């Protein structure tokens, strides 16, 4: 029996609660699951019937590719698990279509509609449109979501007809609006604009926020003027959800025309709206907002608002900002002075130095502490003399922040101070340092490769208080053999998140251990462990390892589609050319929803000759009609050759199809190579289409936030 770790199981159960559209019972999937993958848990049956149900499900699954009627008479319990159905990909489409039309069980029809959406086969569109007339609202809803996943202008009329029905559920109508937004066609936009302009009648659900959000997804097919006009109207509204959505839009559009509508929102009763409005004003940078912001600054009563106003003003009128923040920094209440110090640090400009140096002698230790943090953020050496005076202060938090600020400014030169004062064991009789203090110091020293942090960091990782990403720089900098050895030991104890680090450090003995771990995990059906062990063998392997992996192909666990993909990837990396064809075959047939995950696994291939061979085939697919496959192919190459592959993704980012834009954005956000950021900046600098420019800017923001 295949088993998964408890954490993944918990995630699967949580996801089950969040995916009502998949009433069909299914088991979890793992390996860096993509955010919208269907992950649902199989309903528990009585022990006696379990084996029989499993056998029936296997039988149904086996029949699906060749028999379009295979799902007509199955019950929810007999429906195969979702990973198995998705692994069939398009081969399962005919059976799912007949299921949607002819199965009498509402739950099964709902599941079949959802599967069709996840698989993304466009040949399902006519049947899905017809199924909008299903008697059950839950099925119609699932069908609408599937149509959203396979956006096509040909679905607009059928969706509009459903939306127009007075007796339709509000939830279904809201989903219809979302689907129309995903289609990104002028005819859909017309419907959405009409809905946005229409005030709800008494007792009727107000769907204007949904209409606005859907319209926003289709903004590239609207003229800029019309779009800005619609956002302005939405800002001037009593529906908070609509106003909030419009403030987000205003922040991205950065249109000066919206300034007048945003300024009054600074006093809105909803804090989220107030803050977003100020944020948008800062980004728009229109001088007419300056006066209102300056008036607001000294009277603001929450830190977040203060911070947003500060950033807006810092862009609009730096001198005015520093004059105004001076008043706030001298406020009679310490909490407000504290916030002023925080803001001055976040602005990161040297103009804040005099105010912060004054704050360092504030009567309140908390204000002083925040001022020290801020000076560290600004990083100006002129602050050092003031900070040095705090190294011996009695207040431990203030002392800690002052030392970190000095280290932030001086770097390696002051590593001894950081080590001696905040990491080294105390002498007997001296109160010990708190572990949180030592941990922070060790991580800071680790970032500069200071080997005095080694023992602390490795132990911290072993006991789960430090994450691999936090010590990544350190373990790459420390050349001592013990580091790799310790990481390998932790990996064998089940810390699968260390796979990449072990692969990079290649400690002695890693390959035989990884190969044996793969054999053991595959034979026991431990899918997660097997996947990471296979990844490691693929990284480190040689000829004999390849032979051992080859023998695993017959193991029952290899029926798991992801285990098979990991195994094929490892084999391809070890030089088995036929495995490359297997991977390409998976790329061509896998359910659309799984393609981003496949791209993630195949993108890890590092061997040049394997990349070169695969790249020839991937480039062909990048030019194909199926954009899901084309973009997955480009995403794989983005990991190997960002400059060569980014063009296809940038093209998709400007596509008329919302789905293509979203998919390209997803691949571009997740790519780890910093070169992708540099290339996106290049694209932004040379782009003149406003909507594409907005997307690129937002993408760069998201990449920075995720970093």
């Amino acid at each position, binding site marked *: 029996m295949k088993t998964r770790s408890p954490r993944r199981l918990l995630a699967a159960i949580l996801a089950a609660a969040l995916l009502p559209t998949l009433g069909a019972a299914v088991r979890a999937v793992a390996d860096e699951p993509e955010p919208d993958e269907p992950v649902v848990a199989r309903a528990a049956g009585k022990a006696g019937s379990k084996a029989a149900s499993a056998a029936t499900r296997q039988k149904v699954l086996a029949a699906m590719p060749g028999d379009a009627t295979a799902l007509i008479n199955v019950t929810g319990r007999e429906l195969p698990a979702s990973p198995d159905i998705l692994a069939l990909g398009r081969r399962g489409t005919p059976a799912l279509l007949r299921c949607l039309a002819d199965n009498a069980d509402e739950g099964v029809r709902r599941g079949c509609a959802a599967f069709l959406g996840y698989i993304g086969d466009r040949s399902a569109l006519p049947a899905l449109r017809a199924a909008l007339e299903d008697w059950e609202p839950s099925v119609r809803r699932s069908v609408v979501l599937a149509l959203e996943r396979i956006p096509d202008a040909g679905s607009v009329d059928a969706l509009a007809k459903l939306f127009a029905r007075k007796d339709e559920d509000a939830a279904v109508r809201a989903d219809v609006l979302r689907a129309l937004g995903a289609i990104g066609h002028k005819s859909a936009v017309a419907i959405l604009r009409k809905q946005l302009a229409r005030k709800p009648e008494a007792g009727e659900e107000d769907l204007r926020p949904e209409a606005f959000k859907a319209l926003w997804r289709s903004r590239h097919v609207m003229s800029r003027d019309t779009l800005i006009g619609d956002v302005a109207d939405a800002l001037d509204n009593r529906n908070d959800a609509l106003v909030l959505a419009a403030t987000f839009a205003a922040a991205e559009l950065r249109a000066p025309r919206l300034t007048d509508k945003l300024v009054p929102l600074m006093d809105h009763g909803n804090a989220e709206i107030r803050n977003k409005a100020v944020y948008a004003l800062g980004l728009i940078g229109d001088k007419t907002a300056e006066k209102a912001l300056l008036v607001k600054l000294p009277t603001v009563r929450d830190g977040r608002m203060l911070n947003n106003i500060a950033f807006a003003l810092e862009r609009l009128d730096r001198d005015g900002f520093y004059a105004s923040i001076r008043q706030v920094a001298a406020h009679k209440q310490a909490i407000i002075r504290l916030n002023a110090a925080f803001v001055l640090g976040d602005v990161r400009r040297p103009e804040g130095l005099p105010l912060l140096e004054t704050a360092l002698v504030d009567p309140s230790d908390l204000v002083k502490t925040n001022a020290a943090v801020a000076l560290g953020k600004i990083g100006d050496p002129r602050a050092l003399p003031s900070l040095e005076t705090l190294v011996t202060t009695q207040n431990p938090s203030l002392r800690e922040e002052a030392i970190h600020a000095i280290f932030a400014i001086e770097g390696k030169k002051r590593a001894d101070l950081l080590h001696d004062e905040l990491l080294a064991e105390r002498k007997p009789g001296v109160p010990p340092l708190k572990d949180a203090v030592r941990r922070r110091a060790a991580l800071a020293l680790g970032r500069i490769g200071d080997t005095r942090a080694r023992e602390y960091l490795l132990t911290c990782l072993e006991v789960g208080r430090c994450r691999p990403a936090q010590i990544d720089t350190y373990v790459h900098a420390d050349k001592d053999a013990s580091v790799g050895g310790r990481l390998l030991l932790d990996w064998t104890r089940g810390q699968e998140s260390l796979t990449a680090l072990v692969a990079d450090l290649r400690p002695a003995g890693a390959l035989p251990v990884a190969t044996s771990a793969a054999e053991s995990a595959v034979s026991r059906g431990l899918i997660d462990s097997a996947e990471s062990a296979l990844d490691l063998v693929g990284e480190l392997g040689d000829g004999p390892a390849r032979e051992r992996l080859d023998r695993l192909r017959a193991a029952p666990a290899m029926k798991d589609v992801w285990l098979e993909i990991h195994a094929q990837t490892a084999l391809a990396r070890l030089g088995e050319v036929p495995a490359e064809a297997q991977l390409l075959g998976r790329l061509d047939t896998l359910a659309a929803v799984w393609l981003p995950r496949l791209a993630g696994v195949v993108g890890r291939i590092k061997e040049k000759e394997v990349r070169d061979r695969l790249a020839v085939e991937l480039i062909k697919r990048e030019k194909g009609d199926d954009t899901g496959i084309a973009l997955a192919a480009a995403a794989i190459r983005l990991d190997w050759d960002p400059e060569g592959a980014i063009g296809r993704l940038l093209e998709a980012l400007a596509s008329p199809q919302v789905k293509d834009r979203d998919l390209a954005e997803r691949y571009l956000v997740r790519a780890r190579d910093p070169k992708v950021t540099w290339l996106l900046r290049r694209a932004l600098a*040379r782009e003149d289409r406003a909507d594409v420019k907005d997307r690129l800017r937002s993408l760069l923001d998201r990449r920075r936030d995720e970093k």
Partner: protein
Amino acid sequence: MPRRTGVHALVVNPRRLLLAAPLVFSLGCAPSAHAPEVPAPASEPRAVVRLRVDLDRAQDCEEAFDLALYRNRAVELVAWEPGPGHCTERTLTVRYLAGRASREDVLRAAAAAGAKVTPLPELPETGDRR
């Protein structure tokens, strides 16, 4: 700690952009185009210049520098080396199309976009020049 809705520091010093603009145009490069950018052929000669820069302190100092440099279409890639500082003492390599801009052009554009620019000796050839 106070929370902030998002990051929105000054993107670029407008005065520097004004200074950079004539340089951009002097290189014969339009700041924008309608057609998607076509990569320069691999056969076109490239050159690199390695720099140490101190940028105006701001949250997005690196991005602002890049955006200013990329306005020149002869600049193909600005590659940053990891470093302890955020805006100061940063090292980067600019790869550019040697037939469309000179080393001096690139240095001038970098100087206009960054506060302090010092050319560094080039690193040995890595083969990654496309």
